């Protein structure tokens, strides 16, 4: 309800009710009056008495006369308020209700809906939560801050404040120290223990006599304090500073969230194909990662299970799945251990690369070591298969080294990190001519291996479909003894 919606007579009554403590106090012998303010106080009393007179004997233009008096009352009480440090405490307390009663705009407890537009940092209006058990203090704060463009929501108790903080985005909290129920210090403590509220600036409000508690609150994390009655300029300044702090914090928070989003994206994109170790490396230096696709040398591994297609035909589907999963689980672990990237599972075949997205001089050597470890692991796989009543498997592995294009390949809806290139096809051809339980590597890979580490068998020249030259290959027998 705004003052303008009042009937003039009601408004006059409301002003007089609000002014009653002031009128009673000024002639009390115990209430001293600073001489420089005596004139203003007298003038304010005079204007208030004229309202009383007007109400007793309404004039022909009641509304007009009342508005004139309201103007005067507002002017004098604002002047006194500006100098309120000089006023006796009783009069300090008596002024806010008068100010509220003559102000044209009363601010409702409901704030207008907020826009999601980001606000510039400086001078930006903010959402202020005013917590005070005295209604006239709440309204005064609302009036002063609304004038500066802020959105003010208010709470009359610590409980209500905490409730509002849970549901509303608040930039700065103005918190009265002395309240029944949950007091200001307690609200502050709860906020500082709350993850989401910890960063919201808090300005404590109190009387001069509570300085010790104010200091305790500052130590407990309050950002600032204001003494009652407030100096409007100081209030604005502190609010602006608080909003500024909050904005910086929010920006930092946004930035951090963005980083987390990027990290999640990298994990999701690469988690299935890369070992955790490589994912971590990428996250530490994401700038070193070319997602767009790049031409690079990699060592390609292709392996499959010998005769799996015919094997699968004679097994019930659940057993096929179980057989494959047991095998893949073992092999995936080994490939990741050797920092390989799994490009694809094709039926019973595994396509992996060493050297993308991260390359190293040791990629070919690691790939061969990986192949040997995979061959060794077949014993474990087959022990488990026998125990489960599943058939024994045998594997073959081919390796080749060459240039490929590595990157995110696919459509926007479905993309995956992978490699394409002639070297991939060659690997597949070599694999097609690899013997059971054999590891066959192309000369391109063999030439990059360190001397004396692996024992290679006699070279074998392969003639393959679609490729003009023959391919020179070597079987890997094992590590040099």
């Amino acid at each position: 309800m705004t003052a303008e919606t009042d009937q003039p007579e009601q408004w006059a009554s409301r002003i007089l009710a609000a002014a009653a403590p002031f009128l009673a106090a000024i002639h009390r012998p115990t209430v001293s009056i600073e001489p420089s303010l005596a004139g203003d106080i007298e003038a304010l009393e005079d204007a208030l008495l004229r309202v009383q007179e007007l109400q007793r004997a309404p004039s022909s233009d009641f509304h007009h006369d009342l508005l004139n008096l309201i103007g005067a009352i507002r002017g004098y009480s604002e002047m006194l308020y500006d100098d309120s440090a000089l006023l006796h405490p009783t009069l300090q307390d008596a002024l806010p209700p008068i100010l509220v009663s003559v102000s044209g705009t009363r601010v409702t407890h409901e704030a207008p809906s907020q826009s999601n537009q980001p606000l510039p940092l400086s001078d930006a209006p903010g959402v202020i939560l005013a917590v005070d058990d005295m209604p006239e203090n709440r309204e005064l704060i609302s009036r002063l801050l609304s004038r500066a463009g802020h959105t003010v929501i208010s709470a009359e108790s610590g409980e209500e404040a905490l409730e509002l903080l849970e549901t509303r985005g608040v930039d700065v909290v103005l918190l009265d120290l002395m309240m029944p129920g949950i007091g200001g210090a307690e609200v502050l403590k709860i906020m500082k223990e709350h993850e989401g509220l910890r960063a919201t600036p808090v300005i404590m409000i109190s009387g001069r006599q509570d300085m010790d508690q104010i200091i305790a609150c500052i130590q407990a994390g309050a950002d600032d304090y204001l003494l009652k009655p407030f100096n409007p300029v100081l209030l604005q300044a502190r609010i602006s500073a608080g909003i500024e702090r909050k904005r910086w914090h929010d920006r930092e928070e946004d930035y951090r969230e963005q980083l987390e989003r990027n990290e999640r994206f990298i994990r999701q994109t690469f988690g299935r194909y890369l070992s955790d170790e490589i994912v971590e490396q990428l996250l530490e230096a994401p700038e070193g990662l070319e997602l767009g696709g790049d031409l690079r040398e990699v060592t390609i591994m292709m392996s499959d299970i010998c005769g799996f297609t015919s094997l699968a035909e004679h097994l019930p589907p659940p057993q096929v799945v179980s057989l494959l999963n047991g095998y893949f689980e073992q092999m995936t672990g080994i490939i990741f251990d050797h920092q390989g990237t799994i490009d694809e599972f094709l039926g019973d075949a595994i396509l992996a690369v060493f050297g993308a997205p991260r390359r190293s001089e040791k990629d070919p050597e690691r790939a061969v070591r990986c192949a040997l470890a995979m061959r060794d692991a077949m014993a474990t796989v087959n022990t488990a298969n026998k125990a489960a009543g599943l058939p024994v498997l045998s594997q073959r592995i081919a390796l080749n080294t060459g240039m490929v294009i590595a990157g995110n390949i696919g459509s926007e809806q479905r993309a995956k990190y992978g490699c394409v290139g002639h070297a991939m096809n060659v690997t597949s051809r070599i694999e097609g001519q690899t013997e059971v339980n054999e590891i066959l590597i192309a000369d391109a890979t063999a030439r990059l291996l360190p001397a004396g580490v692996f024992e290679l068998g006699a070279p074998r020249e392969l003639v393959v479909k679609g490729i003009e030259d023959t391919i020179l290959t070597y079987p890997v027998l094992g590590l040099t003894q």
Partner: protein
Amino acid sequence: MNAQPPSILLVEDNEVNRAMLVRRLERAGHRVITANDGEAALDAMHTHRPAVVLMDMNLPIKDGWTACKEAKNNEQISHIPIIALTAHAMEEDKAKALAAGCSDYATKPVDFPDLLEKIAGWIDANA
């Protein structure tokens, strides 16, 4: 006659409001003279050449609108900006004031910091 001209002529027939505004304006550092009606306001503008006039519109003898129009038609004083003081929320009063040649308006009861800004703005504009 070399005394500095007053910065503000306040034209207001309501004595309570007038006294209050004089006090406040003086406290804000202005030199203020007053007039009680539109006729006296025109005389004061001629005599004292204030930097700004604050004029209530509902005035006896000659109302604010008429006084404003006459001031704007008088070459000697037409340059003096007049800020109309109009009753709160009366849109037609504001429009009428601007139509009469007022430079600006402030609603009553006045928002004093806002009024001071307007006054400063017009003084600067004419400096």
